[in-house]
């Protein structure tokens, strides 16, 4: 997303000279994001959730993106090539109803048609491995990033409904939701989402939301003060949560403006 108001000609010239083969837009945004400098990247997983907006540079970015791609429907189907079971591979790519696809594949592994049986075995193995890796990855993430882990468990429990993976993911989710610390994380996340919504309403000056710009501060003073007050409420009510971390960072950026 180009955000310096460059002309179409400037953008096109630069993209062609760099051999860009991805999409460039202008005037776009991510609701609730707090971009105060560029470049600033956001990575979303195949499940639709934000993976990170930090460390998306160089080798670390490559590692993070590679890990995310493994969870993509296209990767879950395995390398193929598939001929007899191509429609099932396409269904897997959609990422929906994977539990029932696993059941179908299990039946087809004992097909009298040798090609079909071989393809079913390959596809089923890839799907089972991918699902298991995702479940184990979420379990490992429980301490470090409980909210992401919880979202992953919920996603897996829907995506693989009818399979044991969904059952295990659902159990993990239910256990986590009983944990008082997780309840606080959820409460904090909901409150933070609201802060993000209000943050979106800040009016930019010359297209930029710069808390160090006196004109921006003057224009948004009341909202900024309210946002800082909201952040302080989160820190107080949900200490040691991700939301409190975000709130502290937010205050560090905006307190000179909204104290």
């Amino acid at each position, binding site marked *: 997303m180009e955000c310096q108001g460059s002309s179409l000609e400037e*953008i096109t010239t630069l993209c062609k000279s760099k051999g860009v083969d991805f999409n460039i837009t202008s005037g776009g945004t991510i609701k609730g994001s707090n971009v105060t400098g560029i470049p600033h990247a956001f990575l979303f997983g195949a499940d639709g959730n934000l993976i990170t907006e930090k460390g998306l540079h160089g080798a670390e970015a490559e590692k993070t993106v590679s890990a995310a791609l493994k969870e993509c429907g296209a990767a879950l189907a395995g390398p193929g090539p598939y001929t007899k079971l191509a429609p099932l591979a396409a269904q897997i790519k959609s990422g929906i109803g994977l539990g029932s696809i696993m059941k179908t594949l299990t039946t087809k592994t004992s097909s009298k048609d040798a090609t079909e049986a071989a393809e079913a075995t390959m596809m089923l193995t890839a799907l089972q491995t991918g699902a298991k890796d995702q479940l184990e990855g979420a379990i490992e993430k429980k301490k470090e990033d409980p909210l992401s882990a919880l979202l992953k468990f919920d996603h897996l429990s829907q995506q693989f409904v009818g399979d044991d993976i969904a059952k295990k993911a659902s159990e993990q989710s239910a256990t986590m939701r009983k944990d008082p610390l997780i309840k606080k994380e959820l409460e904090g996340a909901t409150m933070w989402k609201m802060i993000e919504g209000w943050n979106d309403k800040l009016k930019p000056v010359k297209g930029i939301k710069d808390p160090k710009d006196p004109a921006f501060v003057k224009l948004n003073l009341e909202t900024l003060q309210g946002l800082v007050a*909201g952040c302080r409420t989160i820190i107080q009510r949900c200490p040691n949560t991700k939301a409190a971390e975000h709130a502290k960072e937010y205050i560090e950026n905006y307190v000179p403006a909204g104290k």
Partner: protein
Amino acid sequence: MRSFMAGIGLALLVMCSATHATSVNDIVLGKREFGTNLAPKDLKGKVVMVVFWGTH
């Protein structure tokens, strides 16, 4: 001002506890400048990287 801040505090206290996190649904694509046309539905089920950048 005070009432506005009290309003924020109150709103934060009474919210429900559903899971909310930033997702691809929060992406507003904007105007296409280069490459193919993308619709929000094209982002579903895919790994998506969004970079805010500038030519200058």
